[in-house]
């Protein structure tokens, strides 16, 4: 029976698309997966040399042990973002004479077919087999393999379980996000380190292989919890999305902005209540960790602000960039109504400015936590903030008047190329390069602080001349509004 289900899945995969673009996307995804797998195998085989090369003088086994939990922590995050829930695959079988437990089994096994489940094995297994078995004996090696396999299983079902219970529940997502920020900060300030934890866990496994049983039990438990949850909730309605009664929401603080505020409230609802914009915006929150990777101490000490400028602009303005690149495609489905209704186009643009400014302000407040590293980061981020609200918004909205690609809000955001076109690609060039056009000459004739000040001043100037840009954008929009509306009507 399971094989029948799986063969149906296989056929549906090959027959579903019909449209060339979907197949092309699948091919690119396949190539990407292949590339990652090849890289994973190479890393796996060369692990010992790589560790010796990058971290000379350190004990390779210790470094390896330290990496494992790190890997799985990042793996978990990536899964939450990108792994698909295979639930709807089961719908056509629910009314047939098939026991529920079989369907649950099918869902669980189907969930294993994911690139996420191959990579950890490819990366870690070769090293275990080559090195661990030499150093600690065959039994320890087998336990290593089992533990890593169990962690993979645990992550797989934990991510799916978490996604299922948090479907559409913004509070859980927010709580998870803050947990991550806390963990990141703890790691940064060396209060608690995943690497040390990981190292001690696997050190223990190496010495006392039986200890590994604990992790295997954990993985089995996670599998059971997930299966139990599915068993109790195998109803189409409940699988699809949250079932709670939908009620109206108000954002009273937006009322003071009048009609533009009403439109912003509308767009916030668009983001929170639809899959793709929600995923896009929450993906943006993950980019807030860019700072941890890219704000390097020596760079800050040497005032090399050009290296900080890109992450600062991206973090304080990621909603402008990631969400803004598809404007107004998000509203493609209701665009005719928007135009025919008594909304003023200039109010419409005012609302976009307001939304992007609010988002950028919030992101700047959150990222000012990086100020704990150095006050210079605050200065860079403030300049980036002014740039984003004063200039970035105008650039994005200008390109929005040239974009007529409809976005299907119900689809996921990962590997989704719908709406990606020449305009959204070209847009990022002026958006990310123009700060450097200001910064580099000013730094050359003065110093890096002049560069930052130049960016900030131009941003503020853009902000205070907004009325001018508004008129300009409305004019641009009116030139092309029929084309835009027609593009959205095609919906493909």
């Amino acid at each position, binding site marked *: 029976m399971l094989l029948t289900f799986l063969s149906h899945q296989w056929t549906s995969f090959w027959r579903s698309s019909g449209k060339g673009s979907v197949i092309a996307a699948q091919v690119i995804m396949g190539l990407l997966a292949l590339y990652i797998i090849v890289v994973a195998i190479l890393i796996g085989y060369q692990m010992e040399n790589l560790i010796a090369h990058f971290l000379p003088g350190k004990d390779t086994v210790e470094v390896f042990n330290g990496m494992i939990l790190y890997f799985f922590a990042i793996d978990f995050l990536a899964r939450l973002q990108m792994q698909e829930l295979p639930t709807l695959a089961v719908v056509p079988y629910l009314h047939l004479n098939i026991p529920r437990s079989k369907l649950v089994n099918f869902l669980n096994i189907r969930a294993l077919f994911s690139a996420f489940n191959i990579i950890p094995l490819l990366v870690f297994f070769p090293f275990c087999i080559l090195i661990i078995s030499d150093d600690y004996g065959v039994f320890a090696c087998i336990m290593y393999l089992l533990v890593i396999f169990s962690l993979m299983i645990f992550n797989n079902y934990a991510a799916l379980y978490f996604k299922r219970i948090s479907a559409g529940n913004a509070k859980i997502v927010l709580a998870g996000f803050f947990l991550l920020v806390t963990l990141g900060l703890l790691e940064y300030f060396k209060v608690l380190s995943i690497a040390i934890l990981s190292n001690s866990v696997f050190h223990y496994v190496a010495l006392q292989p039986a200890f590994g049983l604990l992790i295997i039990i954990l993985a089995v438990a996670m599998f059971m919890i997930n299966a139990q949850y599915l068993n109790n909730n195998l109803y189409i309605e409940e699988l699809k999305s949250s079932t709670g009664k*939908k009620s109206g929401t108000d954002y009273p603080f937006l009322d003071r902005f009048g009609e533009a505020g009403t439109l912003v409230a509308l767009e916030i609802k668009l983001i929170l*209540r639809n899959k793709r914009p929600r995923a896009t915006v929450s993906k943006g929150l993950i980019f807030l960790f860019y700072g941890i990777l890219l704000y390097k101490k020596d760079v800050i000490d040497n005032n090399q602000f050009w290296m900080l400028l890109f992450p600062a602009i991206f973090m304080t303005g990621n909603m402008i960039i990631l969400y803004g690149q598809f404007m107004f495609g998000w509203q493609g*489905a209701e665009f005719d109504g928007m135009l025919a209704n008594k909304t003023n186009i200039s109010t419409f643009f005012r609302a976009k400015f307001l939304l992007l400014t609010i988002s950028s302000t919030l992101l700047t407040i959150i990222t000012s936590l990086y100020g704990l590293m150095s006050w210079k980061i605050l200065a860079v981020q403030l300049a980036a903030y002014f740039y984003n609200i004063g200039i970035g918004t105008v650039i994005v909205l200008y390109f929005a008047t040239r974009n007529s690609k409809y976005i299907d809000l119900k689809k996921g955001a990962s590997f989704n190329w719908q709406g990606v076109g020449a305009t959204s690609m070209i847009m990022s060039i002026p958006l990310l390069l123009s700060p450097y056009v200001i910064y580099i000459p000013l730094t050359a004739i003065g110093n890096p602080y002049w560069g930052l000040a130049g960016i900030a001043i131009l941003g503020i100037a853009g902000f205070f001349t907004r009325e001018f840009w508004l008129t300009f954008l409305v004019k641009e929009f009116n030139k092309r509004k029929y084309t835009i509306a027609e593009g959205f009507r095609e919906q493909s």
Partner: protein
Amino acid sequence: MILEINNLKKTYADRTVVDIEYLFVNDGETIGVVGNNGAGKTTLFRMLLDLIRPDTGEILSKQQNVAANDQWKNYTASYLDEGFLIDYLTPEEYFIFIGSLHQMTKTDVKVYLHQYEEFFNGEILDNGKYIRDFSKGNQNKVGISAALMQQPELLILDEPFANLDPTTQIRLKTYLKSLTGSHKLTTLISSHDLNHVTDVCSRIILFEKGKIIKDLLTDKNTLNELETYFSG
């Protein structure tokens, strides 16, 4: 004269979809627009709402070109298809949003919706669903009543009877008829249901391949005349 159309023409890839030399609509008329698929009804409505740019010609609403400024939006309400709904809102939120564009407070909207209780048949309000989760018929109800709520002088509905259940069709008909008497409202309705349009409308315009081929004031022979045309 609320609407005046001069030399209006729209062509898609050599196929003329709308070709109107001259058409006027007087205040207070209820006009039924009929014609087979491809006759250009929806394209005409979209041009009336400035959603499509005509190739040539102009549409004057109260003597002002609709493509030139937004004046017409103040007194025009419309529902053409689901593209006019915002499907991730609850119906209440949608009504309040539309109301707010016309300076109606939340209470105004609630009070106003009260009179639609019968039309809604208890299926629209307080249902705890987003508009996207409603059936097509119920989505239509939301769109039509939101258009009526704006108390327009010019109302444009594209196939309002489609997808509605029989009871609701009859209720909508009665309601549209009662509106024409009560205040100064000009209505344009397209429909494939000849019984309904001849019943509701005082004037029928028949389109074929974008051209007006009949323009009749409704009397007892109109239905017969139309049926003869369509069965031919």
